[in-house]
């Protein structure tokens, strides 16, 4: 695996597209293992596209593109501008709030980040936010998605680790609120420091607010309807993206009557490139993770952690760090499947609570999606917004710090995680 990692870094520095770099370096592992069939890299890549949990990604990308052509986005922005225009860094705050709203719906951070950058990306840049700032805010907002229930990550963790999924769901709310708060403060601080002016001078009058609100009612109802679709059992979490697409088309064609054939085709055409760049990377990264599993890297690390510390908090920090680093390369869904069975027993052995650890673990696995060198959500947002990784990385430092602080806080204050589940389930 060492050669693979070195090759990956070299190819990356050569400026090769990350999707190819990860695939080609991952394939080197198979050259070192001639006893393995030479077809495995191709086979596992195809298999990724058969993973039902990943269907949410293309579906929400399409939904984002279609919302832009249906009139939903416009009205949503109008509403946002009226309500938050007085705030420093208004639209940036809106994007984080929107992530919180969408968090209850889409279980995938990558899907959420991609959709939001489609909806809000251009508009934020148009209103004067630097490209890197806009991209990193849109990206990090999606950290809320897997933490706000329901999340595919929680379901996977609960199923594999035999942890109550109901408790995990309940445990997500307080951390999600803390994440929102910390991201919001980070955005506010940056906006204040740089003197991003509010776009409006006054708070809206009641009349203005009501007008904007009724105008944007279908946009506001979007996540509400999606949630209803989930709760009424029409769709499962993996399927809800299809409902989002149909909703966007329905509103665009029948309610706002703004979407014509041409707009629809343009939205679809835009989706092709978005889906291609995101899914190709996710599919090919399966080649890379194969070697990590076969070499039993996580088991080795787990043994090493126990050797270093017998302290629960210390072990949790080390696990979170490892998950974060390995999350640079591997999708959170895959990470949870791969690592839950290895780290959960370790935490149990040290007397940790499985629900507490689950939230910290899922959060750490998700953060990896937003950080260089490889983060699927980061790449999705940056490729959709045509934002250089360098600019993104610089601008995302405060947001990363905010999220990291919350993670540390959650490690040391289990009560913040366990309060609600204990209240509900006793």
């Amino acid at each position, binding site marked *: 695996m060492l050669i693979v990692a070195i090759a990956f870094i070299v190819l990356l520095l050569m*400026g090769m597209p990350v999707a190819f770099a990860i695939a080609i370096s991952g394939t080197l592992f198979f050259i070192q293992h001639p006893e393995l069939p030479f077809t495995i890299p191709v086979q596992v890549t*195809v298999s990724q596209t058969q993973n039902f949990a990943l269907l949410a990604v293309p579906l929400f990308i399409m939904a984002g593109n279609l919302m832009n052509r249906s009139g939903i986005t416009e009205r949503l922005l109008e509403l946002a501008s009226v309500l938050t225009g007085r705030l420093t860094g208004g639209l940036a705050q809106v994007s984080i709030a929107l992530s919180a709203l969408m968090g209850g719906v889409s279980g995938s951070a990558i899907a959420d980040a991609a959709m939001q950058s489609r909806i809000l990306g251009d508009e934020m840049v148009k209103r004067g936010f630097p490209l890197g700032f806009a991209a990193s805010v849109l990206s990090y907002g999606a950290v809320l998605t897997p933490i706000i229930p329901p999340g595919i990550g929680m379901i996977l963790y609960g199923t594999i680790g035999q942890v109550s999924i109901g408790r995990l769901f309940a445990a997500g709310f307080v951390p999600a609120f803390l994440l929102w708060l910390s991201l919001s403060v980070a955005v506010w601080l940056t906006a204040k420091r740089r003197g991003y002016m509010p776009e409006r001078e006054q708070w809206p009058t009641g009349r203005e607010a009501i007008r904007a609100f009724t105008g944007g009612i279908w946009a506001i109802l979007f996540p509400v309807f999606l949630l209803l679709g989930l709760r009424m059992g029409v769709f499962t979490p993996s399927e809800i993206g299809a409902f989002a697409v149909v909703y966007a088309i329905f509103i665009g064609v029948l309610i706002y009557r703004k979407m014509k054939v041409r707009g629809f085709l343009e939205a*679809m055409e835009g989706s092709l490139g978005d889906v*291609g760049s995101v899914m190709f990377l996710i599919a090919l990264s399966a080649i890379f993770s194969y070697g990590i599993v076969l070499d039993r890297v996580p088991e080795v690390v787990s043994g090493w952690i126990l050797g270093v510390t017998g302290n629960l908090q210390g072990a949790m920090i080390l696990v979170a760090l490892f998950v974060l680093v390995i999350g640079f390369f591997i999708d959170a869904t895959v990470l949870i499947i791969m690592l839950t069975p290895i780290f959960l027993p370790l935490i149990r052995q040290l007397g940790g609570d499985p629900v507490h650890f689950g939230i910290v673990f899922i959060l750490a696995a998700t953060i990896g999606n937003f950080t260089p060198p490889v983060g699927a959500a980061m790449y999705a947002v940056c490729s959709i917004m045509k934002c250089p*990784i360098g600019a993104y990385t610089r601008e995302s430092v405060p947001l990363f710090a905010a999220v990291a602080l919350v993670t540390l806080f959650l490690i040391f204050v289990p009560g913040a995680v366990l309060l609600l589940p204990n209240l509900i389930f006793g």
Partner: protein
Amino acid sequence: MGTIYALLKRLEAVLAGTFLLLMVVLIFTGGVARMLGHPLNWTIDLSTASFAWGAFLCADVAWRNNALMSIDVLTARLPARAARALTYANYLIIAGFLVYVIYAGTWLSWTSRARAFQGIPSVSYSWVTASIVVGGLLLLLTTLIKVHAALKEDGLFRSSSTVAR
């Protein structure tokens, strides 16, 4: 030649879009049918199959539009000639990898043709595997066109029209 390629691009976009929409229609119909008490189990199967085809066709669209992300921390700081050499090296390695993908994908589609798709005996999983072969061929074509364009830009390649002149 140019018109054939334009046609191919058009066909690729139409097919990719159709596969994506098919996914939506199938999943949506499946959810509604299940709610009405008449689950259609084939909708899920067919949607993941069209996902595979859609994903790899879209990958080519993204590669052609230079929408695949890369990191330019080093290349942006290199002298132009060195950066250019790296670009050629990238294309070469990628083309080699794609040849491998096409070969291994074809071989896999052939040897595993007995594998049933989602356990449906009459449908072979090779129809899904074939998506990466076709995707690989298109990606390779796009890579070669990129090489061709780069060579032309660098004056290392005379286009056929100049030769004729």
